[in-house]
């Protein structure tokens, strides 16, 4: 029998409002006369747990705890069995007699230490049909250690690409694409800190250490109204709180990096600390490459720290800090380095049982540098982006049927697009820089979730955001009727420090509706509009180190995206199986495309190289999951399309004659399957299979002779496709624990990535030998890659 830590506190609650009573009357036509409410906290950390399902079994009636761990259910007087279930916590069941309003607080133990369960996703099974949200993926971080990985590096982003609707342009390419969106259209928040580059080692790995992460949620649609600023998706990554009772240490190593994490109380039950770090040593591996690459050098590290101070029962403060650094050197040529530094300070307060607030201060800085090492032309190029934000969110839960959130935020953006400095006394390079850009983004939002009846819920929200580009700066006016070039500037207006140069603003409606057919079947609809004021300027297929950020200005309008989604959700066999089918359609305005041959870097009049485009994507995601039992897993099939169309009155600037063309992320068919099997004694076998249509590419469609050379003509962009991508991975992991509460143990993982060694094409290019073209396929990870990694816990 499991030891259940149950601390029921009974108290009467007489402050229950008339409004709730009325609503209950309207919706159910029944007379509730006992209420059960309380807070659910983590046994170890004493932190409230959000998203725990509290269910009255006899009535099949349930609610979910809010951000403060609070829940409340009203029932007829009687004897009930109440269960508490969560993604990463052990099930707790409690039998109660309810004759008056009752308070039942619950402490739940984390199930990461539970050997019996490995789930692929972290979403609660019943959320599939019962919550109003759709298009969300929650990763179970504790299970990540047991899935197959490449080079032994557990990777949050790679795990996400096994989910429907998430793809990348190729192995070793940074970032990810959600429902055909671009990489810069994802808002990645690590403890509320935006992360502008998610790559280590040019894109092979994600730069967030999974050891310190407690939960990962990706919103592909139905993005909550309290977030905005990116079109495609929201990825929230929250780090763990330090252990409040005991100091713990864990460390581990794999072929690429070593990691360490420690956590514990500085002041018991008051102040906790968690510190985690990873350091990579890829050089010994690179030095084994053939000569041409052997002189390349690479290095990376990342570190996280979190201090959590519990002021009292209702107030806590968390300080979270993050740094990530990378460098990469090509032999005798160029050195790239990039660094993210960020910190956030969050105050969470429970004002009363119905109202709570979060106030957050954030600073995030990302910088990229490139060093040229050539004689006489030595240089150092730098670009950076800084984000300073203050925000406050209120959550008001007047009753179990209503959840109202509102808040506001203000962001100061600073972008230094590029500065070039000579390096070395003999360098002929002049100092040059493109003016820093400043902007202020403010937004307010309100969101109301209303469970109209047991089966019908609605979430209505709206966000109003406003963005002003601030001086100092200059706005160029261009001659009307001709393409924008340096020569077509007719005059320009200068602005002083802090002066408003351009303002954009707009309303962003967010709407979700759930119509339950019964407990196990529901139909959901959602619509949301997003506005994006920052753009990543990149004229390559994959994001590259020299990409830089640009803020919206007079000539570069904010991107606006509308997404419509509909889905049918069905659970079977007491939530053991979860199935869904979701369809979506997206319309995007003001996407950035590039003129052929445009100069992007160090161009003070960048608008002359850019084109305005519109985009559309649509698709269907069919997904199946098995959540319980010794064998768990999921499978999905996704059909998704993504297109762009350049809009310009100047024919010579048109791409593909102004027709719709597939975007780089248009991958129509996508099949993913993953299975995990517990075979006893701590052994777990896991396997993945993934199949995707090859990404669009442009093969030559004509030949010419120019400059006494043969050349290939590419008249249409993205008119061809790479061969299909497919891959299978396997892993065996061993957890050395004999009992679930064993403190000192190890987890070993042996992975075989790309089991059948398929040469998946990253790219195909041609080389000419006199008069013939020869085509070559480049595969980045073109063979089976075994790796062994371990983690030790103390």
């Amino acid at each position, binding site marked *: 029998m499991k030891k259940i830590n149950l601390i029921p506190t009974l108290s009467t609650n007489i402050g229950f409002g008339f409004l709730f009573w009325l609503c209950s009357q309207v919706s159910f036509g029944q007379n509730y006369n006992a209420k059960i409410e309380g807070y659910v906290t983590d046994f170890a950390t004493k932190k409230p747990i959000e998203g725990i399902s509290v269910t009255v079994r006899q009535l099949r009636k349930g609610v979910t705890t809010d951000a403060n761990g609070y829940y409340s259910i009203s029932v007829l007087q009687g004897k009930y069995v109440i269960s508490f279930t969560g993604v990463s916590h052990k099930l707790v069941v409690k039998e109660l007699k309810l004759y008056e309003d009752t308070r039942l607080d619950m402490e739940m133990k984390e199930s990461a230490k539970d050997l019996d369960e490995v789930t692929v996703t972290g979403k609660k099974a019943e959320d599939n049909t019962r919550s109003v949200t759709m298009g969300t993926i929650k990763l179970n971080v504790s299970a990540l250690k047991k899935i197959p990985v490449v080079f032994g590096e557990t990777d949050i982003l790679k795990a996400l690409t096994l989910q429907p609707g998430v793809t990348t342009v190729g192995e070793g390419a940074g970032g990810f694409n959600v429902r055909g969106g671009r990489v810069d259209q994802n808002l990645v928040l690590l403890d509320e800190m935006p992360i502008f580059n998610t790559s280590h080692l040019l894109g092979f790995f994600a730069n967030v250490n999974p050891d310190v992460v407690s939960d990962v949620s990706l919103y592909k649609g139905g993005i909550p109204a309290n977030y905005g600023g990116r079109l495609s998706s929201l990825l929230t990554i929250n780090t763990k709180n330090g252990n409040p009772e005991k100091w713990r240490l864990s460390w581990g190593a794999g072929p690429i990096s070593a990691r360490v994490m420690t956590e514990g109380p500085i002041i018991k039950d008051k102040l906790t600390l968690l510190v985690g770090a990873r350091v990579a040593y890829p050089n010994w591996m690179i030095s084994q490459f053939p000569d041409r690459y052997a002189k390349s050098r690479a290095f990376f590290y990342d570190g996280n720290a979190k201090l959590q101070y519990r002021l009292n029962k209702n107030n806590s403060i968390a300080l979270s800090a993050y740094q990530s650094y990378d460098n990469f050197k090509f032999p005798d040529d160029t050195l790239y380095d990039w660094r993210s530094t960020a910190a956030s300070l969050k105050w969470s307060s429970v004002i009363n049982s119905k109202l709570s607030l979060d106030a957050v201060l954030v600073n995030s800085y990302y910088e990229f540098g490139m060093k040229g090492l050539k*004689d006489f032309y030595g240089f150092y190029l730098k670009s950076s982006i800084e984000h300073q934000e203050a925000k406050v969110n209120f959550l008001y839960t007047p009753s179990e049927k209503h959840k109202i959130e509102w808040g506001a935020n203000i962001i100061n953006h600073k972008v230094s697009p590029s500065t070039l400095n000579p390096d070395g006394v003999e360098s002929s390079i002049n100092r040059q820089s493109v003016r820093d850009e400043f902007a202020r983004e403010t937004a307010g939002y309100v969101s109301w979730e209303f469970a109209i009846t047991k089966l019908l819920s609605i979430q209505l929200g709206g966000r109003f955001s406003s963005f002003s580009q601030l001086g100092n700066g200059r706005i160029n006016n261009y001659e009307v009727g001709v393409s924008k070039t340096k020569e077509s500037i007719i005059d320009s207006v200068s602005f002083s420090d802090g002066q408003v140069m351009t303002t954009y603003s707009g309303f962003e409606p967010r709407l979700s509706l759930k119509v339950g057919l019964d407990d196990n079947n529901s139909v959901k609809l959602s619509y949301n509009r997003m506005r994006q004021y920052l753009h990543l300027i990149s004229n*390559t297929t994959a994001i590259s180190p020299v990409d830089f950020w640009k803020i919206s200005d007079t000539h570069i309008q904010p991107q606006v995206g509308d997404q419509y989604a509909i889905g049918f959700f069905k659970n079977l066999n007491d939530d053991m199986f979860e199935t869904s089918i979701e369809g979506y359609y997206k319309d995007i305005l003001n996407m950035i495309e590039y003129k052929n041959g445009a100069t992007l870097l160090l161009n003070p009049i960048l608008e002359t190289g850019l084109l305005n485009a519109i985009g559309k994507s649509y698709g269907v995601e069919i997904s199946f999951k098995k959540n319980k039992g010794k064998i768990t897993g999921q499978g999905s099939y996704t059909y998704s399309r993504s297109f762009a169309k350049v809009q310009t009155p100047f024919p010579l600037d048109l791409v593909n004659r102004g027709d719709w063309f597939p975007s780089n992320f248009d991958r129509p068919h996508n099949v993913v399957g993953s299975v995990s099997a517990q075979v006893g004694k701590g052994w777990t076998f896991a396997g993945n299979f993934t199949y995707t249509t090859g990404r669009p590419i442009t093969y030559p469609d*004509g030949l010419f002779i120019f400059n006494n050379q043969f*050349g290939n*003509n590419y008249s249409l962009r993205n008119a061809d496709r790479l061969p299909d991508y497919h891959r299978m991975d396997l892993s065996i992991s061993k957890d050395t624990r004999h009992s679930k509460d064993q403190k000192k143990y190890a987890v070993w993982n042996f992975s075989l990535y790309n089991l059948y060694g398929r040469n998946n094409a*990253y790219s195909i290019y041609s080389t000419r030998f006199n008069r013939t073209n020869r085509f070559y396929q*480049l595969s980045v990870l073109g063979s089976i890659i075994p790796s062994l990694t371990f983690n030790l816990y103390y």
Partner: protein
Amino acid sequence: MKVWFYITLLLIFFISCVEEVQIPFRSETVKLIVEGGITNDKPPYVIKLSYSGNLIRANYLNLNLAISGARVIVTDDLGESVEFEQSLSERGIYRSIDESYIGKIGRTYTLKVLLKEGRIFESKPAKMLACPPIDSLYGIYEDVINTTEPDGYKVYLDTKDPAKEQNYYRWYAYGYSRVGKICGGKFCSNTCALPSIGDPTSGFNFCWVPRFQTRIDIESDALINGNSIRKRPVFYSPVYAIGKHFVEVTQFSINRDAYQFWRLYQEQSSRTGTIIDPLPAPIQGNVSNINDPLDYALGYFEVAGISRKRLVILGKYDVLEVENNALNFTPKDGGCSLLNASCSRPDGWPKD
């Protein structure tokens, strides 16, 4: 543990791989290709017209692409114009016929092409910009890491960029060296004897071997405005035999549009399949159909001011080093069997 490290290491060798593949092909509309331009150098000026070829197989190049029967005219902003005449011997080549029509710095030129089939193409007007002189050219004998050619002279250029305007440069270079026969594992004396009767190749103990630069060499002063351009490599002259080298470098002062075109062309012809390759694009230049702007031509009509400099490298060698290296590459039957070799003294070759 260590075992797996080594196994991993071993396998890494085979990870990133490149293999030859066959691709499906797709043929699009044939395009006009325009090449050539006008400078302030002495005429004739040359315009080359051809069509792009269709892909019959993905790797097959059709050579029968030259355009004949077109009318080619260049007009300047003062209304003066010059007609071009089709060459009789070289297909698709048109030369300006008026010897007195010379390009002038500061004037603006437009190209008009009337194809026999009826379409009329016109270039955007472009201004001829002054070109700063080449200050110096010099060659340095260097070991090169190249298994197909012997070590040789890298030729460098110095020039001074004018500060007051934005400048864009293109360089073109060619050169000659003289390569003799090999006698007894050593270079023979470099004398050009007359051939014996009945065997035209017998007497040539040496030939002049030309070398033309094929790579696109362009630069913008965006990063170095007003500074010296120093030790810019412009040419490579391989040493097949002991002797002199002759190099001529032309510096073109091109305009921004042209620079962007050349950069696009350079980018497109150097795509290597890395993760940061630019997106493929047609090398669309400044010429298009006057009735259908979507019917653009590939290539470019270039208007440029030029300056030129010649260099003779006398060649002071460590004979042993050169022989050790060059003899691996020099054909046994002498320089005359090298590509384009000729026994007639090229223009500019110094008196012995």
